């Protein structure tokens, strides 16, 4: 196979956006400018500070990206620096689900059930090409083209698999998202999205 020496233009995320922390911070200011209660607003800040720095991920990995997730937990990348280190094996104890890997048609109801079992407030991070859009398996008849077809996604991390640095960028974006939430003052509670019903195949349903 001959490789053409013409350097192709690589489509990539605009690099400026990686350094752009201000947009979200401005957004917080704008939201608060609407007259948040001083006491409740301050309480919100405290709660969000705590929550965003102790997001517990669910250990959920179907394929390659899971190995990079493990690398994240090991010493070189060390996600404990950001408060992600408490990976839980039970969805009941986890704050966020990192969908690491391809979701197939057979896995889709299982993933939905895992998501339903998590306690609110919960977040979803789609990691890797497969979870974002189907990735290299987009044309397969047994692959869900993006987990956002099944569950609402908060942050997308592209890559095949994403580098640990991209993991961090994505997870820090999630932290920012958590930081602008309001529980007490204001009105931007995490919006309710349309639920996709899952029916259990019980005796009653069959009738």
């Amino acid at each position, binding site marked *: 196979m001959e490789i053409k020496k013409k350097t192709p233009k690589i489509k990539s995320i605009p690099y400026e956006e990686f350094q752009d922390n201000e947009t979200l911070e401005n957004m917080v200011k704008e939201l608060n400018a609407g007259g948040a209660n001083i006491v409740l607003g301050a309480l919100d800040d405290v709660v969000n500070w705590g929550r965003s720095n102790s997001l517990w991920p669910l250990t959920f*990995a*179907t394929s*390659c990206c899971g190995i*990079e997730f493990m690398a994240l937990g090991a010493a070189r990348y060390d996600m404990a620096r950001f408060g992600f280190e408490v990976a839980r094996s039970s969805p009941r104890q986890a704050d966020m689900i990192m969908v690491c890997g391809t979701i197939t048609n057979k896995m889709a109801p299982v993933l939905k059930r895992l998501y339903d079992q998590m306690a609110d407030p919960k977040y979803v991070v789609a990691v890797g090409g497969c979870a974002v859009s189907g990735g290299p398996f987009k044309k397969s008849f047994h692959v869900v083209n993006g987990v956002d077809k099944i569950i609402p996604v908060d942050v997308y991390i592209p890559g095949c698999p994403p580098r640990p640095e991209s993991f961090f960028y994505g997870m820090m974006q999630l932290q920012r998202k958590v930081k602008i939430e309001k529980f007490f003052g204001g009105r931007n509670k995490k919006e309710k999205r349309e639920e996709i019903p*899952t*029916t259990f195949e019980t005796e009653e349903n069959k009738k």
Partner: protein
Amino acid sequence: MEEIQVIEPVALHGEMLKLRKEKQMDYLVSLVGMDWGDEGGLGVVYLLRSTLTGENVSIKTATKDRVAPELPTVSDIWKIADFYEREVFDFYGIVFINHPDMRRLYLRNDWVGYPFRKDDDPEKENPLNMTNESTDDTTPEIEFNPDGTIKKQENVIFDDREYVVNIGPQHPSTHGVMRFRVSLEGETIKKIDPLCGYIFRAIEKMDESLTYPQTLALVDRMDYLSAHQNRHALCMCIEKAMGVEVSPRVQYIRTIMDELQRIDSHLLFYACLAMDLGGLTPFFYGFRDREKILDIFEETCGGRLIMNYNTIGGVQADIHPNFVKRVKEFIPYLRGVIHEYHDIFTNNVIVRERLVGVGLLSREDAISYGCTGGTGRASGWACDVRKRMPYGLYDKVDFKEIVYKEGDSFARYMVRMDEIMESMKIIEQLIDNIPEGPYQTKMKPIIRVPEGTYSAFVESSRGEFGVFLESHGDKTPYRLHYRSTGLPLVAAIDTICRDTKIADLIAINGSIDYVVPDIDR
């Protein structure tokens, strides 16, 4: 590839039994379902090998009936045929007469149609189904009556009185989305029913509509811890088919990369096994040294986990100027720290209690199930493809094939730890002598493989990985089948775990070291 014998379905079982008994064909390498259209019908290609003589035999059989295709089973001759035939039934709808367990292996129970048939349109009939799948406790079996008519019968996997525990698909110790149903009596395992398919991406079906260079991309993503070796196998198969000779430089680079990948995979195995048993420090040790290998990969290939490095006729890019230097730094470093691994884990009392004498797999079972790689060699079966059928530069380097006799979890662990040392030995012999030359043979822009069937085998990190290619002269393969290294291991888990404790299932799972996306493909 050698000639494929054709045997009619009626005579198949008898002929197979004769091969097994008289020619000692005790290892069923692969069983490939095929759809040859209306003329050839639906059929199966069997690849057999003798562990005594190393002789290979390939046999094919086919039936013209597309409505209710039936073939005799060989699952009573080779134990692994049980799973392989279920796979073929799942994809092609061929019913194997006298097979005790004709359930689908990968797809949902309520799946409509047989997706690998050329005339099937799986997407139309099977939209995304969000209902939870119900699992059957009985399996259908089809038998012949003495007068030639067919009798349907139900076999019970788990009856109502059994206490069945479900493990997976979301469970940290199944190393991915594997599911086991375990029947218990107290704490003792009576039976395990593995359910696969939660990461079945139909790679083999996708390959049929991709050009050859495109198929390469998907091989890396099956067993991502043997990405280099898997891709090496497919490239080798296509090169063999086209009569392309790669330069000695490419041979050196490929062999070194394969061995680095093997060390990488075994370090991860060590880390995961330790974590499964509850030890976190070994996990950090394993990953600390693994990152150093990934750095080497990254410099040359650009990727950390999925490298996309081998291409048809060569490799993607020449090795980085730092490559030799960094590899030569890494090997003395790993030799210097490997004693830490043994100090903290191998000689630990708890580890020995958990692993020694647990999860026995006999040599006969290992061969009958086709458990290659570290698992097979821990049971005393010398099955290393690098020694049996040398490829790359393995016939020129000096290394020892690690074989243990015990067949327990500890032997499986030790095989891998010793293999790290052997891999380092291989790299040391090669790294100083990489010859000059092109890193890529010039190929035509559109690659067409001449008509015929081809196969290639390599020793991946966890066993014998094989590629079976049938080409009809197009720029896309007619059928591309991969021999999974993990499926035999999962098939054997019922045998390995019988009458052990449920807690040992986790340790055994860790020690047999499978990668689920490789099982499901």
